């Protein structure tokens, strides 16, 4: 008899189906993994379980009884606790205050009593934490422990952990996995969301693999291998591979020398990454999201200052150049990951977005005056050549489909004739037709002798377009494979290893 049973869960956001008939069965006292790439729907599912969202259809059952969670409070009352990926901790309050936040109880804060009980709990799970320490001063690993204490303090029986190891360093991860086993020994049931295969195989009993809102596999850990599971994770309806022409790479266009950078939270995101790309070559970067790819692209484009290392384009260091200079002088084109918040201004029209990055140059403006006629003409031309389906170029770009928006962005970046084109997650959320068109554009650029850096979490995409494939994991470039040597299994293994080999295989 399963402890937690989800049946036929459907969740839609507008026209987008996030969860499509998802069913899940978790045994009591087990550690059950939920595996899948970003956008697979795992977090949406957990948010439903925890009461942040309500499912449109489907049922939930806990220990045989129907589970009704309309809010996190109800989830907690039912014994379901969640350890969020982004901690739900108030930075300038103490550990104790965070743990007791939201607990029913009288007006007066009975801090002394709570402190005593918290210390008892800490002893049982073998944590060493000072209850009066302020969260802001604690390292990430300890903060996660506080997050877990919050749930345990409320006597939850089912613990949902959302990508818990994504914030931990290699040393902390072992301690964390050991703790999971301790909790299992205490009789807790755990639902472990992750994309890291090796952890799944270290502690979990069962794994459910999700892809694009559906469950694609449900296996006992003992019955399977990492390679099989990773295959389940990354497979997808394929775009037909674009035409390849043999190409001898030319001069060196991009060179990264031991590039390191911090992410927005101040954590090291890139560790001494070195790579090079030549003219007429596509270097693909594979890897699960959140391993430093965004920071890599931003550093090259000029949106993030690296903490150390050098970036050279056509043998000229670009570190001192700002975004605009890198585009005009160093000829770096950049298609960012997030087209809605970075790549486009949604409330601007098509033609305004088309000229967004070149607004100060001819032909879009001359001596400070916008040349609208020229802008219109250019935009019409691009839309025709790049097959951007739209009603009119005066239309606000928010009304275009994702694929057409992306085609316009591509047109914009490619038409400025860059030497280096950096493309990040270009096909996210696009249909096959759009993907095909974009990949064709990339191949055309390659044929014209441009250097392309193609970063994507979709392995099939990367395999389709790249001449060489690099893999990033935890901010390290763990390896670079020649196209002939690359296959899904090898890459998947590189994706989960945290050891930087640096060698080309």
């Amino acid at each position, binding site marked *: 008899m399963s402890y937690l049973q989800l049946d036929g869960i459907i969740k839609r956001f507008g026209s987008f189906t996030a969860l499509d008939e998802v069913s899940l069965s978790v045994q009591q006292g087990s550690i059950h993994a939920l595996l899948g790439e970003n956008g697979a729907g795992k*977090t*949406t599912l957990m*948010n439903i379980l*925890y009461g*942040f*969202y309500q499912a449109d259809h489907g049922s939930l059952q806990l220990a045989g009884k129907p589970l009704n969670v309309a*809010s*996190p*409070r*109800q*989830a*907690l009352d039912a014994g379901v606790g*969640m350890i*969020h*990926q*982004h901690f*739900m*901790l*108030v*930075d*300038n*309050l103490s550990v104790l*205050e*965070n743990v*007791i*936040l*939201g*607990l029913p*109880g*009288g*007006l*007066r*804060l009975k801090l002394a009593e709570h402190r005593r009980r918290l210390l008892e709990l800490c002893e049982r799970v073998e944590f060493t934490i000072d209850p009066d320490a302020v969260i802001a001063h604690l390292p990430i690993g300890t903060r996660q422990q506080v997050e877990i204490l*919050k749930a345990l303090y409320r006597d939850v029986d089912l613990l949902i952990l959302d990508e818990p190891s994504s914030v931990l360093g290699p040393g902390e991860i072992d301690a964390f996995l050991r703790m999971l086993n301790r909790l299992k020994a205490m009789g807790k049931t755990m639902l472990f969301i992750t994309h890291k295969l090796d952890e799944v195989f270290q502690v979990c009993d069962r794994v459910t693999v999700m892809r694009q809102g559906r469950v694609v596999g449900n296996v006992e850990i003992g019955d399977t291998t990492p390679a099989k599971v990773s295959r389940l994770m990354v497979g997808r309806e394929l775009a037909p591979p674009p035409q390849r022409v043999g190409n001898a790479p030319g001069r060196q266009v991009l060179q990264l020398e031991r590039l390191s950078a911090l992410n927005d939270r101040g954590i090291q995101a890139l560790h001494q990454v070195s790579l090079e790309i030549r003219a007429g070559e596509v270097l693909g970067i594979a890897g699960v999201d959140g391993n430093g790819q965004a920071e890599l692209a931003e550093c090259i484009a000029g949106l993030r200052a690296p903490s150390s290392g050098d970036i050279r384009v056509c043998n000229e260091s670009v570190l001192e150049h700002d975004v605009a200079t890198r585009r005009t002088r160093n000829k770096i084109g950049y298609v960012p990951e997030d087209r809605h918040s970075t790549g486009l201004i949604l409330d601007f029209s098509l033609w305004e977005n088309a000229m967004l990055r070149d607004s100060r140059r001819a032909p879009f403006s001359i001596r400070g005056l916008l040349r609208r006629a020229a802008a219109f003409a250019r935009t019409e031309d691009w839309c025709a050549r790049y097959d951007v389906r739209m009603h009119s170029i005066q239309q606000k770009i928010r009304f275009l489909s994702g694929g057409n928006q992306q085609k316009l962005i591509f047109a914009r970046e490619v038409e400025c004739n860059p030497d280096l084109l950096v493309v990040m997650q270009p096909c996210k959320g696009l249909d096959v037709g759009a993907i095909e068109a974009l990949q064709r554009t990339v191949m055309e650029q390659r044929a014209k002798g441009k250097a392309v850096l193609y970063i994507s979490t979709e392995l099939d995409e990367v395999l389709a377009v790249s001449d060489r494939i690099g893999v990033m994991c935890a901010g390290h470039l763990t390896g670079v494979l020649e196209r002939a040597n690359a296959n899904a299994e090898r890459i998947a293994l590189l994706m989960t290893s945290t050891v930087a080999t640096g060698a080309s295989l």
Partner: protein
Amino acid sequence: MIDASHLDILDTGLRLAVPLIFAALGGIWCERAGVFNIALEGSILGGAFGAALGAIIWQSPWAGLLVGLGSAALVGVLLALMTVHLAINQMVAGIAANMFVLGLTSFLARIAFAGGSASATVPGFSKLAIPGLSSLPLVGEIFFKQDVLLYALYLMVPLAWWLLFKTTWGLNLRATGEYPRAVDSAGLSVYRIRFLSVIGSCMVAGLGGCYLVLSQVFLFTEHMSAGKGFIALAALILGRWNPIGAVAACLLFGLSDALQLRMQFGNPDVPYQFFVVLPYVASIVALVVFAGKIKPPAATGQHYQRGGK
């Protein structure tokens, strides 16, 4: 040597600070919950108007107090609907609310108070000397020969501090202003906390207006709040959103206001405007100097919407 005129300045300074303190306490409540309250000014004015209205109609300061609280609460409801419910930008909503209250009270004052732009004299709170304490030298003269509202304030300040830092309610409030997602995931309603905080905050600030009318000038005139709401805002920033700190800042501003009034009638060496602008300039300077260190509760100004990943 402290003489009567010095005592007088201290006494005036304290009394001028009172509306500021009420408003600042109200502002702390609201901003700690994560909502900017630019409408403290409107709350003071609304409270003042209600106080005058109630006191004149029922010829009792207590009636005035009740009506004043009520009218300030209405301002709070208006602001809460705009900021928490409709998610209108908090600055825009606050400024709009201020202008609305200003216009409305000017007009209603003309109708309600037959005596032109200023109302008739309002029956107010008289001074009560606290037996025993008021005989203390110096301190007794200034602090214990005041009216009920000020005595209430003596109690409210430590109460505010205790509520904010030593109770569950205060903990929830502070967490809402810092990181509402944590509060939501702990099972509390961010919407309710913020909505009620906005209303409560305007009511407390409205007490400042009640004090102006019922204990200080005993009448209502248009725009009598005269920017006190904004000074209170500056004071609470200087006081780092802590009741004790804000009170200290308000007392400072009250004192400089008292000095400024004195200057107007005597000393030609320093222009009185210098003292008038002192609180404003000091606030700007404090904001600049402590820009990194003085921070409002982290989630202030941002609307909270459940969801995300």
